[in-house]
């Protein structure tokens, strides 16, 4: 956010929401007198409420509660407010923030924000009312809605089934119809039914043979057999995975600028298909997608499922070209986690938590704190490739071998660097890489060492570096200290540098004996060096440990600390012998990567690269080369050889395992450059703060991982220990979502499934079960289904079967004048809804009719484009694709989905936009669709194949038209249709007949 406008807005609309510091400072500073309190008894209803209503209510009333404050509800007015509560202090108007604001004591917090200020008399009345005890009769207070008093948040209890029908679904539906006196439609004919259910469950038409068999099947369970056959078909998972991927906003490129491909996204798509085909219990399906790595360790599904978290778009530039220390880099990461958490909460609970990023949710019980608690759940994650094994046994063996390998590799490293100072080579390498870039080097996020906070400024604190055993006899010429530069809090240079301090050197790490003082600045305050490193003459003194002791700490806001970016000890050759040295301290606050003890000797501090001279760089290079060449002592060499052999052995066994696979997932990243992730700290979550107005520069209170308080029965808190691994946070959220007490999860999934079968959800806003969403048309039916689903096997296939075997599903879709008078929208389900085929089903059916559909399952997506200029911003050129390329004749679920340049045919047919969660496809009818279906090169190419196919099936034109109708429309043509099309075929050819069929309303709509 850039940067003064948000601040401006704060004053304009945030109402009682600025900073308390500022308000009180202004009150003291200006010393402007407050208008005198009115000298009479004041009545709230008569004197005060009219002022509040006229001047405050627009921004602090039922519609808006800026700054979390409202003046129409007594308790809220007296106690609430984001930043100044209580704004009214009964008995003390002079100290009441509300009076300060209306009196204009603070330029930036003048109230009302719009319009003229209150008159002095009005302020006088307010003052008098407060001074007289702020008496507010309850009868004059608006009632506040209980945010939990909403249908979807009520405990889920299974209602009883009304009488009147054999099938429970019919019983619920008909009970409502009966109330309105509407008769349900009769059943559709068998041809219609099998076409309906086959498209519904598989996204493809039934074969003519399947139609014939069902029409001829006289057994009482003919319908059930069809349903079961389709549910068992692999095509089912392919069809229904697309529904889920719409919600998860899955894509195969990153989107945003450059829109680079994401070549390992597809294993998640395959996971969804497989999960549905194998009828994975829904709660497991949920848990795997949020925390499969933690909850199902060793299983491939537990990893591939994490593709859910990374399914949405990713801002490449914001992460790769910008560090987390820059404002735009912070925003990119905030929005990235926002996408992860809203994807999770929207998909599984239909809660629109993302509304609370900048302010408390206006309608639902989601406060800003809750939102940032959810940010904490995902705070360790990034989107990146993650490797995994396909079978648990290999995964276990690999994990064991890697566990065996890690100490061996560390030991090798230690032995190799023995005598040269552990970590020195590593630090040199990193440093040289940075310094080579000179002034262009991005600043590292590793600020330095940070002590714990002290209450008193004279608290003594120390931090010291171990220069290594070999250094104890090396005379030092200079000691250099660089002050920290805190970009994160926006404080800048000089952060935490002590006012009084001394530097000492000793061979005793406890500094109890033989301590030599290098510099003593404890006598008077030392000016803050800001970005200029402090150089102290060491005059040839030597010792193994060098210690900085602060006797007067640096002040933060109301407390005191010691922080330092870098401590260097230079020998006569100018070599920094402290580099990579072990750091100890009296106490420490580690907030990796910014604050960590080892940062003190990493050779790096803010602005370091810009100060580098070529000579210095050359010296560092030379030293590194020397260290790498240094021969270890003989005893070490023997040990090294042995350990290396063991390491090689482990590596060989690792290499013999089946190859690892890769999925693009929401996971802990161990990266480099600006895109570093949290891997280096073992996946320690980034600290998350409540951001005022969602502004990354306005950090408020720290957040803890937790969910949203949506239910009295289900606590939102996770109560995780502070050192719990990051995956425990996600596991806790997964447990919260799949807790049987969660009132949303079960209603949400059942409603989604209902919608895909019936064309409309029982609640018509599947992604929003909050107050802005739609109340269900059949609440008891929804609860009955949801409770049954929750308490049963959580089998989606069982749920499909239950819905599809109802008579309600099998009704004809034809209109009925009488019913339309009462319920034109068919909310009450007196008929089946006629469905427009989705983009994927249209394309798949065209390929199927043409005999070209390739049913190969899984693997990387097909690309129906040619990529030009892949090196920078790829151009995805659909126009250059050859529609005859058989590799692109697979089902549409396997399409490689580009975000910035979408496939024209699918797009015009209303396929889901992978940039947002789509709970329900738009269904449009427009000229561009007509043009695409008639003229698109794929439909034309397939019309030719379709014609060739039917030509081979029958010798006569009539026979060919008959075959084409049966393949594409699942019926025989009527005699007049055959006659007309036969005549047309003689004039225009069979291909044009096939082209017409692809464009028919009957092709596009399923009765």
């Amino acid at each position, binding site marked *: 956010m850039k*940067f003064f406008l948000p601040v401006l807005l704060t004053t304009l609309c945030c109402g009682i929401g600025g900073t308390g510091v500022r308000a009180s400072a202004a009150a003291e500073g200006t010393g402007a007198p407050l208008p005198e309190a009115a000298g009479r008894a004041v009545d709230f209803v008569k004197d005060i409420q009219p002022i509040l209503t006229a001047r405050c209510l627009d921004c602090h009333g039922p519609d808006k509660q800026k700054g979390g404050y409202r003046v129409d509800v007594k308790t809220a007015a007296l106690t609430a407010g984001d930043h100044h509560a209580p704004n009214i202090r009964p008995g003390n108007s002079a100290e009441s923030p509300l009076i300060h604001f209306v009196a204009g004591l603070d330029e930036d917090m003048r109230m009302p924000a719009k319009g003229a200020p209150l008159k002095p008399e009005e302020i006088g009345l307010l003052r008098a009312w407060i001074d007289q005890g702020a008496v507010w009769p309850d009868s004059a207070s608006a009632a506040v809605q209980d945010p939990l008093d909403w249908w979807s948040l009520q405990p889920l209890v299974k209602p009883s089934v009304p009488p009147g029908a054999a099938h429970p679904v019919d019983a619920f539906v008909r009970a409502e119809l009966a109330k309105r006196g509407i008769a349900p439609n009769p059943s559709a004919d068998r041809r219609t039914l099998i076409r309906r259910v086959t498209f519904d469950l598989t996204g493809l038409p039934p074969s003519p043979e399947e139609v014939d068999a069902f029409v001829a099947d006289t057994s009482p369970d003919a319908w059930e057999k069809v349903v079961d056959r389709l549910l068992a078909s692999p095509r089912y998972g392919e069809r229904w995975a697309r529904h889920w991927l719409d919600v998860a906003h899955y894509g195969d490129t990153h989107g945003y*600028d450059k829109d680079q491909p994401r070549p390992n996204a597809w294993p998640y798509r395959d996971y969804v298909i497989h999960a549905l085909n194998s009828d994975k219990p829904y709660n497991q399906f949920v848990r795997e997608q949020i925390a499969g790595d933690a909850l199902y360790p060793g299983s491939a599904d537990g990893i591939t499922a994490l593709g859910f978290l990374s399914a949405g778009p990713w801002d490449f530039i914001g992460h790769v070209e910008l560090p987390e220390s820059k404002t735009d880099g912070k925003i990119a990461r905030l*929005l990235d986690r926002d996408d992860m958490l809203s994807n999770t909460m929207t998909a599984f609970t239909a809660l629109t938590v993302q509304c609370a990023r900048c302010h408390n949710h206006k309608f639902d019980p989601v406060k800003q704190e809750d939102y940032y608690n959810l940010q904490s759940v995902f705070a360790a994650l990034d989107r990146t490739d993650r490797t995994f094994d396909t079978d648990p046994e290999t995964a276990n063996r690999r994990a064991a071998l890697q566990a065996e390998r890690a100490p061996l590799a560390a030991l090798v490293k230690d032995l190799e660097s023995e005598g040269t100072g552990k970590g020195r080579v590593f630090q040199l390498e990193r440093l040289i890489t940075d310094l080579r870039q000179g002034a262009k080097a991005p600043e590292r996020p590793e600020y330095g060492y940070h002590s714990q906070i002290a209450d008193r400024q004279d608290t003594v604190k120390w931090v010291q570096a171990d220069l290594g055993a070999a250094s104890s006899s090396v005379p030092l010429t200079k000691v250099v200290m660089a002050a920290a530069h805190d970009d994160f809090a926006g404080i800048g240079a000089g952060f935490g540098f002590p006012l009084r301090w001394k530097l000492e050197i000793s061979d005793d790490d406890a500094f109890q004996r033989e301590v030599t003082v290098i510099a003593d600045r404890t006598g008077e305050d030392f000016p803050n060096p800001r970005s200029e490193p402090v150089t102290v003459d060491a005059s040839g003194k030597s010792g193994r440990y060098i210690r900085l002791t602060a006797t007067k700490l640096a002040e933060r806001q109301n407390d005191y600390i010691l922080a330092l970016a870098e401590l260097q000890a230079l020998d006569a050759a100018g070599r920094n012998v402290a580099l990579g040295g072990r750091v100890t301290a009296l106490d420490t606050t580690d907030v990796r990567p910014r604050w960590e003890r080892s940062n003190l000797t990493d050779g790096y501090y803010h602005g370091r690269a810009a100060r580098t001279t070529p000579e210095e760089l050359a010296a560092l290079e030379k030293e590194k080369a020397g260290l790498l060449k240094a021969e270890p002592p003989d005893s070490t060499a023997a040990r090294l050889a042995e350990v290396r052999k063991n390491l090689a052995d482990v590596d060989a066994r690792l290499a013999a395992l089946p190859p690892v696979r890769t999925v693009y997932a929401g996971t802990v990243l161990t990266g480099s450059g600006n895109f570093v992730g949290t891997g280096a700290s073992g996946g320690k979550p980034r600290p998350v703060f409540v951001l005022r107005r969602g502004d990354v520069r306005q950090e408020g209170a720290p957040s803890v991982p937790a969910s949203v308080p949506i239910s009295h029965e289900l606590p939102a808190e996770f109560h995780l220990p502070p050192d719990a691994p990051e995956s425990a946070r996600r596991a806790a959220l997964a447990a919260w979502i799949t807790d049987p007490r969660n009132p949303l999860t079960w209603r949400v999934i059942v409603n989604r499934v209902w919608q895909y079968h019936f064309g409309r959800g029982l609640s018509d806003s599947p992604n929003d079960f909050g107050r802005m969403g739609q*109340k269900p048309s059949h609440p008891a039916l929804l609860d009955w289904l949801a409770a049954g689903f929750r308490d049963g096997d959580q089998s989606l296939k069982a749920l499909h079967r239950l819905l599809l075997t109802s008579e309600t599903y099998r009704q004809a879709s034809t209109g009925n004048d009488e019913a339309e008078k009462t319920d034109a929208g068919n909310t009450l389900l007196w008929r089946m809804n006629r469905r427009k085929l989705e983009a994927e089903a249209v394309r798949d059916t065209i390929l199927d009719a043409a005999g070209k559909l390739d049913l190969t399952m899984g693997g990387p997506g097909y690309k129906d484009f040619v990529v030009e200029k892949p090196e920078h*911003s790829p151009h995805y050129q659909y*126009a250059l694709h050859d529609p005859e390329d058989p590799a692109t004749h697979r089902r549409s679920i396997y399409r490689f989905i580009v975000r910035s340049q979408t496939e024209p045919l699918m797009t015009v047919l209303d396929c889901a936009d992978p940039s947002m969660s789509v709970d329900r496809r738009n269904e*449009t009818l427009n000229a561009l669709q*007509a043009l695409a279906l008639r003229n*698109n090169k794929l439909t034309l190419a397939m019309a030719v194949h379709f014609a060739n196919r039917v030509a081979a099936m029958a010798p006569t034109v009539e026979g060919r038209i008959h075959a084409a109708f049966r393949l594409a429309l699942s019926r025989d043509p009527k005699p007049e249709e055959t006659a007309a099309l036969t005549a047309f075929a003689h*004039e225009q050819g069979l291909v044009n007949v096939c082209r017409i069929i692809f464009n028919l309303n009957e092709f596009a709509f399923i009765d």
Partner: protein
Amino acid sequence: MRNLSPFHRRAAASAGAPPLSRREFLFRSGGGLGGIALAGLLGGENLLASAVPGTSSQVFPPKAKRVIQLFMAGAASHVDMWDHKPELEKRHGRKWDPGEKVELFQSDLGNTFASPWKFKPYGQSGKMMSEIVAPLGPLADDMAFVHNLVSKSGVHSQATLLQSTGFVTPGFPGMGAWVSYGLGSLNESLPAFVVLPDRRGFPSNGQKNWDSGFLPGQHQGTIVQVGAENPIADLFPPQREFITTGGETAGLAMMNRLNQAHAAERPGDSRLEARIRSYELAAKMQLAAPEAFDLSKEPAKLLEEYGIDNSTKTWPTAINAAEEADLMGRKCLTARRLLERGVRFVQIWSGCDNGFPRRNWDSHEDIARDHGPLSLGMAKPVAALIQDLKQRGLLDETIILWTTEFGRMPCAQGSLGRDHNPFCFTNWLCGAGIQGGVTTGESDVWGYKPAAESVEVYDIHATILRLLGIDHTRLVFRHNGIDRRLTDVHGHVIEKLMA
């Protein structure tokens, strides 16, 4: 009933879950007021006022009917084009110190960097404009400048989306989509919202800048590749032996016959009729669009004014003003022809993605090398377009908005380029309802930040919607539980911009 209408919010909030009415069903299936299905059924241009009873009084009398948005991809430099800064000339080459820490996107803080171009005053208003926009100088008194715009991001992707859709993340409808949704089409034979991208590639985020997002699909910007063999995808079939002119007509008639019979058996479903009609409209579009794109009948003198050069077949490899003007001129002239034929909103892009060699406004390396030809190649045809619209009386009904994702810094990057400046940049508007010759907000002495108050894209969008007769707070679409607006929760109409 997600959307009773663009202005459904109040009604929906008070109603529970009423059954779908025929009209609602149409909105949903045909997709909003601008939907073709409705255009046919409700008819007329002023759908907005007549379609929603009780809301007409709250709609402002429109001062404009159409919009052209000129978008300079990559971030055009305000201080080199419109926002004259003598201070930069005075302090050129010296340390630049705005008195606070400056966070740059790519570079370290360079020295103060004067524009390589000279500025001079134009018109009654005496507006200072640079050599590289000189062709627009004579129109200075028609243009209203906003020099105090700020962005929310210094990253191209987010900032471009912010200007095009009002949000920094993808998935939101472009401004043209909102206008199409709110006002519908003036000519059902052409799309309401047309995008003329740079032929060399899409800008950052590609189609997400003109997407319909959650709005119904027909409001998405239709891409017209000016000068390409197939300017609109699938407008015509590729050449196949089985496709003949007569056959196409006969085929449509046959399909229509079968569809009518099918619909007759299924009364009460207006979508079936709407789909039949969509094929009729498609046929009309096949006639209307090629005619609209055909520049061959335009007089040679006019082509020359637009910078269109039919004689040069191959251009130099280095970036040059003549080629830029030719590319931009074709888009500008096509835009005029589309506006004449009733297209509501035309979005013209200058500049493509950040590929090599650079062909956009992101002049990190060399302002003079890239901004010179790009700007001259933009200013000439845009000036011709404004004059042309004026002469035809169309400027009185058309708003022109010139924009970009952010500005560029007053200091140098390297020694010749400028880094991103999201803290300040310029827009200008002209045409219907716009007060010409004014500057409504100034930048500071550097062009680094606004001098006083700032303006955001929401304010520009709110103002344009107002000129179109729309209250920006009431053009609403409920999506995933949120009543979405082009202006999010922001936006103040800039009264000073309006005539």
